[in-house]
């Protein structure tokens, strides 16, 4: 890096506006009457200095705060648009999104879908925006932090006249005894917790420099947070799966490689008491029963490792837990959360064989809808055979009876009934509130007796290794924010030049407080109060108008 030497002897990097050491404004950047631009202490921001190669141009682009603000604005607007209509994952899973948005929200909905806003937060361009934001934060911080740090470290006590003159708060005055005045001021400034440095009888009082690092610490937090978000897409970092378990059933926990199984012993649901005085009004407003708790009595099993998945390998109970909303079962790095339920799913249907003429009944068959037998022997020559079973019956497009799924939402049986009277067998087609005789008049029929239902619980399987990043990033973010917001960096220079006292002050925020500090320090010293040149200019302007 080429350097140039200031008259004070300090070597400054090329592109510097104000000498890092003595503060003398650099030739060519001088416009005599104006205040100094003290942003980043007038250091050379390298991105602005070296712009020749392609890499430098990328660097320059991302280091610009203007570009950064635009990235933030675009991201904000895009994020807001994503909340206008529900995202695809929140619409009913059975509907076709292409029609759903148009049907529900009209033309705007159609447009919303076609522009891809229904999947906004996982779209490539949204992720690109977030990535650009991260890169911008990183490069802009690096580009500013290091030069600023160096400049504040190398600054010396005695500053160049032009530096002092062109500070916002500046004044000169003639004092009888400069030494006495300075000693007094020093005491006062120490009282105000300023750090005093002296050199050749000149003074600089400084406090709160660490407030200048606030934004950079804040940005480190943000970057850690964004890395946490990014890690979600890395294998093994994040799992979010859904599982349904019937009462009495045991199912493998997805994403655990078949290692863990979970059983649902009982599912409980508790409703608020409708007659309770306390809740009465609220219940009426809700217009229906309100769920108080729902809970799964879960048992966790670990499968013995047999070197093969499937039907072999003992399940060993490892844990039991009543899983409630926000009270998950935890094991390894997984957590099982209660999310949903389905009440009264058909489980067992019971029938009896009835003589249509005499209404005499023969025995009873209890059919487990998840494991029906093919033959039920009622004794004395009475026998029921199930020829076909459709758990979720419907007629398909070629008019063949079939099932929609394996869940018995609409079970239909085709029975063959054998009796001593009808050894050839009679066929009957039985479903819920259906009892047909597809192959001619029968003497017997299957009469529905009873039904048994079970509850089904839905659990979420969640693993999230990105949380520590988000928490730590968030904490660092807040520390940086507080550091930069609640403290101010203030410097006061007291210098003797040609027998006069020069006072200048600089702060990164709240000049009023700085001026008060100065006034307090010089109260009895005979030094006259410096003026705020910005304020002064405004007053003159007002007068002229």
């Amino acid at each position, binding site marked *: *890096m*080429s350097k140039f030497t200031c008259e004070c002897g300090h070597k400054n990097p090329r592109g510097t506006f104000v000498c890092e050491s003595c503060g003398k404004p650099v030739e060519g950047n001088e416009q005599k009457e104006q205040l100094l631009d003290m942003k980043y202490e007038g250091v050379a921001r*390298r991105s602005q200095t*070296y712009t020749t*190669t392609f*890499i*430098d141009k*990328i*660097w320059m682009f991302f280091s610009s705060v203007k570009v950064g603000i635009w990235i933030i604005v675009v991201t904000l607007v895009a994020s807001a648009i994503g909340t206008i209509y529900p995202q695809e994952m929140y619409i009913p899973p059975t509907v076709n999104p292409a029609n759903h948005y148009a049907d529900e929200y009209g033309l705007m909905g159609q447009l919303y879908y076609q522009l891809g806003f229904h999947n906004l937060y*996982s779209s*490539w361009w949204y*992720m690109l925006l977030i*990535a650009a934001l*991260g*890169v911008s934060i*990183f*490069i802009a911080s*690096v580009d500013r932090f290091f030069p600023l740090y160096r400049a504040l470290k190398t600054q010396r006590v005695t500053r160049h006249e032009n530096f002092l003159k062109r500070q916002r708060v500046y004044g000169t005055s003639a004092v009888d005894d400069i030494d006495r005045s300075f000693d007094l001021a020093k005491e006062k400034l120490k009282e105000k917790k300023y750090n005093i440095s002296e050199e050749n009888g000149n003074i600089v009082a400084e406090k709160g420099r660490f407030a200048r690092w606030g934004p950079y610490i804040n940005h480190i937090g943000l970057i850690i947070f964004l890395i946490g978000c*990014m890690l979600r*897409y*890395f*294998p093994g970092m994040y799992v979010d799966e859904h599982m349904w378990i019937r009462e009495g059933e*045991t*199912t*493998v926990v*997805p994403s655990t*490689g*078949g290692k863990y*199984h979970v059983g649902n012993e009982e599912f409980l649901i508790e409703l608020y008491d409708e007659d309770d005085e306390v809740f009465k009004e609220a219940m009426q407003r809700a217009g229906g029963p309100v769920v108080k708790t729902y809970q799964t009595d879960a048992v966790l099993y670990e499968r013995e490792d*047999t*070197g*093969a*998945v*499937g*039907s*072999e390998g003992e399940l060993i109970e490892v844990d039991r837990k009543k899983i409630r909303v926000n009270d998950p079962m935890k094991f390894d790095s997984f957590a099982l959360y209660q999310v949903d339920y389905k009440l009264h799913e058909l489980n067992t249907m019971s029938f009896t064989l009835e003589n249509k003429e005499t209404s005499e009944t023969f025995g009873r068959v209890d059919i487990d*809808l*998840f*494991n*029906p*037998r*093919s033959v039920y022997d009622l004794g004395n020559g009475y026998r029921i055979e*199930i*020829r*076909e*079973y459709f*758990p*979720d019956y419907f007629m*398909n497009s070629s008019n063949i009876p*079939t*099932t*929609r*799924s*394996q869940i018995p939402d609409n079970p239909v049986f085709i029975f063959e009934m054998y009796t001593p009277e009808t050894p050839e067998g009679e066929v009957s087609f039985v479903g819920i509130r259906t009892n047909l005789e597809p192959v001619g008049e029968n003497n017997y029929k299957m009469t529905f007796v009873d039904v048994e239902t079970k509850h089904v619980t839905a659990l979420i399987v969640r693993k999230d290794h990105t949380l520590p990043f988000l928490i730590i990033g968030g904490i660092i973010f807040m520390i940086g924010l507080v550091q930069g917001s609640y403290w101010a960096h203030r410097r006061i220079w007291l210098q003797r030049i040609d027998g006069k006292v020069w006072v200048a002050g600089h702060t990164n925020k709240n000049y009023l407080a700085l001026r008060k500090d100065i006034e307090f320090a010089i109260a009895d010293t005979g030094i006259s109060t410096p003026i705020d040149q910005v304020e002064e200019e405004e007053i003159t302007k007002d007068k002229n108008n």
Partner: protein
Amino acid sequence: MKQKRLIVRSSILVVIGIALAYTFYANFIADHSVAQAGDYSINFVLNDLEGERIELEGMKGKGVFLNFWGTYCPPCVKEMPIMEELYTEYKDQGVEIVAINANETELQVENFANRLGLTFPIAIDKGRNVIDAYGIKPLPTTILIDEHGVIVRVFSGGMTEQMVRDFMEEIKPGT
């Protein structure tokens, strides 16, 4: 000095670039399915409808045509007779079919197999252990395993006769 700056800047950009490229790759391009061509197959044990024990390891030396299906899935139903027809043809050439049913009732599966006269081994995956282990999402999905136990192909969707034939050829031992 100028050289150093360029190197520092370039390497930072390269690191950021690689991290972002991987994130985008993982999110948009990468195949997240559990079973992938080239992987070693996951051993499983199931009992078929006749009660015979089927272990994948035990079929080493044969090509295995692993078909995941359900009676409620029309394309699954459609390809069953095709598989049956080619099963008899390729059985002697060392290709075995195992049809794994997605947790339906024995009654349904048996009725179905009898109606279509299916002779290849059919096993019901009670508790969906094998389906979970292989990460099967849509039905039908067919996984082709060669005689060394390596997955050659994962195919989701219905198959025509020509496709089934090609797949059989693909896993025929000694080719």
